[in-house]
């Protein structure tokens, strides 16, 4: 199994995890295939709203 496939599996696992799923979209969106786009990832993580807070 190559590294791309391993990373795709890891991202799926993060998305499926109850605790980690909150940030899955931000991580998936900012993995550029060779590294993380740091600043945009940081901004995306800062703007994540926990579900209960978003609902209120």
């Amino acid at each position, binding site marked *: 199994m190559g*590294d791309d496939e391993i990373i795709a599996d*890891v991202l799926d696992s*993060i998305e499926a*995890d109850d*605790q980690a799923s909150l940030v899955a979209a931000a991580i998936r969106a900012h993995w550029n295939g060779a590294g993380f786009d740091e600043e945009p990832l940081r901004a995306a*993580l*800062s703007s994540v709203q*926990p579900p209960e*807070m978003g609902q209120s």
Partner: protein
Amino acid sequence: MKVVRMRIDGFRSLRAPQTIDLKDGRSLCLLADNGRGKSSVVDALEFWSTGTVEWVRRDGVGLGALVHLDADSATVEVTTDAGVASRTLKGSTSGPLTAGQGPMIVGFAPEPVPTLRNRTMAAFVDKTANDKRTELLTMLGLTKLVPFRLGLRAAARRARSELNDARKAAEMANAAWEQSLDGDDVATRLADLAAAAQLDQRITTEDQLLHLETPPSASVPASTRLAQADELAAANDALASTSVMAWNAAIADRHIAAERGLSALLQEGQRVLAEWEDDSCPLCLVEQSRAELANRVQDRAAELAVADARFTTAAARAEERGQAIARLERALRAVIDDERNSDWSHLPVAQDVLTALGLEAGAVKTALRGRQALNASAPTLASEALAELREAALRAPGDVGPALLQLSQLRARIQARREADEDVARREAITSSIEKAAEIGETAVRVAIDQALSGLNETLGSFYGKLVGQSPYTDVRLEYRDARSGGVEFSFIWDAREEVCPPQRVMSESQLGALGLALFLARLSVQPPDWRTMVLDDVVTSFDVVHRARLVRLLVEEFPNWQVVLCTHDPQLSRTVHDEAPAWKAIKVTSWTPTDGPVFGESDVRGRLRQRIQAGEAADELGGLARQAIEQALERPIRQLGLKIRHDPTNTYSAEEYRRALISGLRDGGYARADHPVLRRLATDGSVTNRACHFKDHDSGVTPADLELLLDDLDELDAIFYCDTCQKRAWEVRSHSGHCQCSCGALSCA
């Protein structure tokens, strides 16, 4: 893919053209003293398959260093079972290279021939765990796992750090709230203030205060309205301490990034131009340099993009600052309009504030337009004037303003405290989520690398065991260690007791060398490249005789379909190869001069002698070769059977000395064929070869027929140590005590 033929001309120490034929991809043992051209052959193969040589690239000396000092050009032509291709360099180290021929690869694109040199083997073992990881993961095709893992870890660290900051801010907001109650409980404090402010409604809870509608501006005194201005002044302070600094930092950042980017590009361009002038293989270099240049330009562009993003954020905040100032101006102007006809003594001060704000708004606009730095003093003027108005309002007797002002301040602190608590809760959720994501990533990366390494480790441990035999080191393996920065390091159990890592703690140089060699071979075995040729250049320097023999056996047993090019200066290793791997071709550097370089001679001496006799050469021309053949034939059984011969520090014995030592040793050992007639005839053969050696003018009386008899006798000598029935040689059935006994008993000695 295997090498069938190499032709090297003018390359490094190989001035005169040399051809090495390896028909059918035979393995090769190249024997030469130090400094006699072995590494030139290895470098030639590397240059041919990669377009450069590692040390040339590392030292930045230019490809001209590969051309022999007396040559105008260097050519390496290699024929493989897939086709023929050549590379040529034109020029010399003494002058600039002329336009080279460039690579002309016909029929296939070669990849680097797997090569292990003594120095690279030691260098790998000595690499840090991180560098080992990089090299091994590249080999295993898992390079992206490292940045992925590090990116997740960094994000988790940053989230945790931001959470800590948010917690500190919440603590401060709570402390400010407690302080503002001045020791009272909330209900008492709020009720007292509501009464002082002459409010109609009762206020005793935080929520009531938060939902309190402030009295309409027309019905409250000027001082109350100034409380609103006071809030704006606080906002002005906050903006002054943040937006000005952020804006100015972004401006500086952008300038620095632009300057660095431009100067780096300029330097890079100059370097590339300089290389084009110095080297002669521009096609290779242009591609390489263009790729490097593209990478660097991309890096600079990324820096500029980050600086631009920061700049945009700062500009937005500065824009907000301008809008806040405008709101402040409007509020103040409303106050002044309302009080224009009253006797309010602070109207001139309010007018001054308005003027200061107007100046500040202008400064912000100018800075935004011209991308200039902001002066941090302008908002200070406005703040000072606003503070003066606030003090005046507080001093007004019988006024409800102070109470309203304090209620306003309490409400702001409640809001700040609640917002800080909410921020902590949100960041706790994000941090826990990203930390869990990092944990999932960490586990997955570890499992993937462990799986990849386990395949390699099984072979590594097996090969290491075969190389070193009995040793106190077991369970030799490579381990991924994520505790620190995720390095890969050798590990093993020492003396069946303790795990040791790194190996340098207990292993000797030769044991470390064996470890590097085992890893190199394990890599080829587990993930074989297209090549079925491997080059081992002087890799057994620190090995003793037993370990050298083990290496050759390992190569023969584990890589039967591979072509091995083994370069060594050690005649004993060459003899071991001859014994253990008789199918390998053996080439020895027979002479060497600085101007022409080495002369390769095949060590199948008897075969060459027979060929030259058949070609009709005079016997007197072949004396040297004949003597070499007889000495070689007599020396081999002495060495293999461990027979005694008088000590000579120069290790030079005549054929007659070998013959006598052989007969004596065989008799002493009770060897069944000790009195074989051929052993006597070889005395005559020795005399004949001596005559042929010493009479070069064709008057020795020795004929080609005499030399053919010599060759027959040498074959017969081989035969007395061989059992036709058991198909074994005497030394193959020799016990540790020295006793020889084949199954049928033909080869026997006491």
